[in-house]
């Protein structure tokens, strides 16, 4: 399966969970999603995003954004996120990181909800009618606690260093990827390469493996996180990130960026 075929498994309107920049982001697959013109996505950032959310928003793929933050980090504001929000291009669901983790874990445990401390008195809570406050029934005095409904993504999408010959994927200590895959109906994964090994065959690698039973599609995408880094395997492309941050500041610049790096780059292959 190639990356475009993988992207083809994502229907319009799907709820997609994606990881933070440090976990391995499927940017090559993101370009494929944009090329296919997929629309109406409910993007769940577990728990934050950067370039990926900004590109998908700018390309008009996103109907709902659920996240604790969107930022290009040292490259500054995520310009398409800010512009899209101002232009009401999508519905915004602001959260705090552990709330998204907890709601994802609730889905992975088949629970309707998960309680979470914190949040009381915040506008995060006030702006989320889907979150409820109950009184902790185990406390003697009044003890309000927030209940978060489970987030059940249709798809978990991420990029990892490699898959083994049996379709298991190495995720190392990035356990948010495991949580996302458990919560989602299926996981779509791009990898740098397929290795002729058995990840479940040794205790060391098994501990950092997402089993193939959770995975609905794997595509090989060398440097598939570019221009982001993949763990400490390759660094982010500073020049390109600066170029993106600059070009994405305007609608025209972003269109030119897509034309050059998403549409034309693929056509040239």
């Amino acid at each position: 399966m190639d990356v475009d075929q993988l992207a083809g498994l994502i229907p319009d309107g799907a709820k997609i969970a994606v990881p933070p920049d440090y976990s391995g982001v499927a940017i090559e697959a993101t370009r494929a999603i944009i090329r296919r013109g997929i629309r109406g996505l409910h993007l769940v950032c577990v728990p934050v995003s950067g370039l990926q959310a900004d590109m998908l928003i700018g390309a008009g793929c996103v109907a709902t954004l659920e996240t604790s933050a969107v930022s290009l980090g040292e490259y500054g504001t995520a310009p398409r996120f800010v512009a899209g929000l101002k232009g009401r291009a999508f519905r915004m669901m602001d959260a705090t990181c552990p709330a998204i983790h907890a709601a994802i874990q609730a889905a992975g445990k088949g629970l309707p909800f998960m309680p979470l401390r914190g949040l009381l008195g915040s506008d995060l809570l006030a702006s989320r009618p889907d979150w409820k406050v109950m009184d902790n029934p185990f406390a003697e005095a009044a003890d309000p606690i927030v209940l978060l409904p489970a987030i059940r993504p249709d798809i978990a999408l991420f990029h990892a260093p490699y898959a083994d010959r049996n379709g298991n994927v190495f995720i190392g200590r990035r356990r948010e990827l495991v949580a996302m895959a458990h919560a989602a109906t299926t996981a779509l994964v791009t990898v740098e390469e397929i290795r002729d090994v058995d990840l479940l065959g040794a205790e060391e690698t098994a501990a950092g493996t997402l089993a193939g039973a959770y995975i609905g599609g794997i595509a090989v995408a060398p440097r598939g996180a570019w221009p982001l880094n993949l763990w400490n395997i390759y660094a982010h492309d500073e020049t390109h990130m600066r170029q993106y941050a600059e070009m994405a500041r305007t609608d025209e610049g972003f269109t030119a960026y897509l034309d050059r790096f998403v549409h034309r780059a693929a056509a040239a292959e």
Partner: protein
Amino acid sequence: MADFNRHELLIATIARLLDGCRLVATGAASPIPGAGALLARARSGGRMRVNVLGSIRNDFLCDGGVELFDLAAQGRLDAFFLGGGQIDGQANINLVGAGGSYPQTDVRWPGSFGSGYLYYLVPRVILFREEHTRRVMVPKVDFVSAAGPANDGTYRPGGPIGLLTNLCWFAFDRARRRFVLETVHPGHSVEEVRDNTGFDFDCPDDVPETARPDPATLTLLRDTIAREIAETYPRFAAQIFGVSAA
């Protein structure tokens, strides 16, 4: 200020505020808190652990992105740092946006990150925002990412101990829900703080100067800590200390 710079003062102040902690963590894009935590660790006689997000050598988290939050909820994390696009006099913080009408705010920041949780659970949250202006220090935040302590009996083991800026250190009086100007940094004045603060705060008649880092601290910082923080923040370390990673 001939013998130390502003960054060194902030780092040394943070290290002092962390004294006695068993475990301190720093978040993304936090070179000064990171250096302060590493300095505090170096002076703790081995009693303090520090987790620097983004470090290889000083990051023991291996259970995914949720582990830091779980650590806080377990009561193991003694101190953390939070900032905000706006901070108000009741210690509410806003990392979302200002002006307009949420979610279509005039200015939009990245988002609340973990603040809506850690602020409630970590006992010694240090609010850290270098920019000290009326744009940041407002009477009332436009959006509450994380609320200051309400003292309403709800579960709240954590909260701010104070607010450190380029100008001063405010302690936070939790019982009175107000900041108290505790020290003003060398070279700055109470008037300057007052002029640049949009919220009311308590101000004793006599506000001492923030303690200057002593020579031993500066030596430790420049010789050892600078190289340790350079592993995670190489540009910062090169710019402030002129060193590269150890």
